[in-house]
């Protein structure tokens, strides 16, 4: 209710209030619903970062010190919700920095509206479809906060290379969830495999599917060398287990998802080849920053650190806030969006991740390739794309 009266008041006054010494960070991510995985994880990292900045008494730009106010709302992956929330953030709350969305359907819905505010705010989202708009006129407000499979700097290319070099696979079976993520993977990787002269088979499954034996058996008939399964851990646990138990597949190639499902079945599989932006289990031991992050996470959420996918987004979005603050300091302003953007694109940030943005505003970061053999002995290769 408070929100209503307040926003009505503001609306009547028809002038967004810029609260004193508070930088408003908006967030539009799906926290619940079918497609909440990425949104949920990234929002965790951001909330943690905001909490730490404020606990440290905020940050100084010039001689003024600021605290961060996080205005997070749950889109449930519903474009309708998201577009209303963005309007509130930009017009009523007057937020100049919005994190999200990770979902492409949400992004394409808010894009025409967000465009009107070009130059007035920054939208730092991970949605794949941002790739189609970023760098085009009137889209200076876009910053793509996620690495991109395709393109010369993209990791997809490097992954497929590596696959060919290390396993000499000739035929790949693709088994993807029939939703945005799955569709995107098909569009990106089918051509990549073709380039390398690799044959592909494709099957899609409805989200929520739990029993894969039928479709796995079907794929196995074609005798492919390796299985390239879906992108989120939920089905991965089931796919890997059923594929090995049913003796359909023992080799796996992943560009999303985590090591978890592999480790669970380490004695049943021959090869588990996975793209991991950062291999936390290892980095935690070697890199104090990571160790601190994991500790803070446990303290803040009072639950164990999820070593599956959570680190991907949570840690990168954690970094992004600090990058943004860094940029503000460099720009000497908390609301000169253009300047702040310039600084963001100029810097290479060495936090949990080593991140920089290319000239268009797309994020580029190093990643690890983790390969596990039967019994679970693991080899990690760090790929530097900087």
């Amino acid at each position, binding site marked *: 209710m408070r929100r209503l009266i307040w926003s009505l008041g503001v609306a009547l006054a028809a002038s967004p209030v810029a609260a004193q010494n508070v930088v408003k960070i908006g967030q539009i991510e799906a926290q619940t619903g079918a497609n909440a995985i990425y949104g949920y994880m990234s929002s965790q990292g951001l909330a943690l970062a905001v909490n730490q900045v404020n606990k440290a008494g905020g940050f100084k730009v010039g001689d003024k010190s600021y605290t961060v106010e996080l205005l997070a709302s749950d889109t*449930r992956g519903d474009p309708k919700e998201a577009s209303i929330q963005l*309007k509130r953030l930009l017009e009523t709350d007057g937020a100049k920095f919005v994190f999200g969305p990770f979902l492409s359907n949400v992004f394409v819905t808010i894009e025409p509206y967000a465009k009107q505010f070009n130059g007035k705010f920054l939208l730092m989202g991970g949605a794949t479809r941002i790739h189609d708009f970023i760098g085009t006129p009137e889209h200076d407000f876009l910053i793509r906060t996620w690495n991109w499979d395709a393109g010369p700097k993209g990791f997809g290319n490097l992954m497929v290379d590596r696959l060919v070099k290390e396993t000499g696979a000739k035929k790949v079976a693709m088994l993807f969830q029939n939703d945005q993520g799955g569709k995107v993977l098909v569009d990106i990787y089918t051509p990549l495999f073709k380039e390398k002269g690799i044959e592909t088979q494709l099957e899609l499954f409805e989200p929520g599917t739990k029993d894969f034996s039928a479709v796995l058996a079907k794929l196995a008939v074609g005798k492919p060398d390796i299985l390239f399964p879906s992108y989120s851990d939920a089905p991965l646990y089931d796919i890997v287990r059923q594929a090995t138990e049913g003796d359909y597949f023992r080799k796996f190639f992943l560009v999303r998802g985590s090591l978890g499902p592999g480790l669970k079945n380490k004695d049943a599989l021959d090869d588990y080849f996975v793209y991991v932006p950062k291999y936390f289990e290892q980095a935690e031991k070697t890199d104090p920053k990571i160790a601190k992050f994991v500790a803070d996470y446990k303290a803040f959420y009072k639950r164990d650190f999820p070593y599956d996918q959570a680190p991907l987004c949570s840690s990168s979005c954690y970094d992004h806030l600090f990058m943004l603050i860094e940029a503000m300091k460099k720009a000497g302003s908390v609301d000169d969006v253009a300047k702040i953007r310039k600084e963001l694109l100029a810097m290479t940030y060495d936090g949990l991740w080593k991140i920089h943005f290319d000239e268009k505003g797309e994020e580029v970061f190093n990643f690890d390739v983790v390969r596990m053999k039967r019994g679970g002995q693991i080899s990690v290769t760090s790929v530097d794309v900087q």
Partner: protein
Amino acid sequence: MKALLWVPFLVFPALVQSNFILSIFIFSFILAIAAVSFNLIFGFTGQLSMFHAAAFGIAAYITSLTASFFHVSFWLALLPAIGFTILISLIIGSICFNFQLRAFYFAVVTLAFSELARLVILNWNSVTNGTLGLMVLDKPFVWAPGAGLIKIDGVFGWYFFSLAALIFTVAVCSLVLGSWIGRCFAAIRLNEDLAQTLGIDTFRYKLLSFTLANTLAAIAGSLYAFYTGYIEPNYLGINQSLDIISMVLLGGRSSILGPIAGAFVLTGLPHMIDLSGEARAILYGLVLILTILILPQGLIGTLASWRRAA
């Protein structure tokens, strides 16, 4: 007299310019169209149809696809959408009502058909772009005296456009329900066997109710697509149907205007009070349960009965 109810809505944008608040109203108007029309078959004819979201979504797709493929205006593109909705409603309706599927079975069969529709749209990639959905770039035009052709774009245009559509829907519903057709719907809802022995062709009138409801939902769907500028298979999802049902229940299934109230509450509330996703889902569940167990007549119905009591 009833017309006066709309006056506040007409002057509202003059008072509140907030794009954020007005867009809540626009979504509420459009969803209210779907809810009011759903109430024709559910509240007034007593048949729980689960096909409503499907009609909404199918029409959204047909309208936007026609508009983009043939580069025709919104209004022209609306025609095939409505035509197809009528056709498919007649087919599904005559299957269900011919086989005398009652209550639960009717719900399940209509649900099955809408799931099939969703799966077709989801997997017909070449046309619907599957799960990635389609962007709808063009906007409808209307002719206004003096101003000539106006492009419906921006929040004020859409506010009055969707409001007009809602008023149209309410008008249609109240005319139909005020006529002998409305009496037949009531007869079917209250006692179908008796209705038959009194010479009412229940099959025909159930079919009529089902088709009319879906057709109005089709209009809502097309508006929704052109307003948000994006369509995806989830528009046909079960959740969409459930949302519409909850709006009707909350507002009250016994009145034409009830569902409008429901649409406003369920669309606006989440943005008025900040809640975590989980908390909201719990609240949503509680609202649904409590309305059914405590306010079976819904908000409007209860208010009305209080006034009568007072």
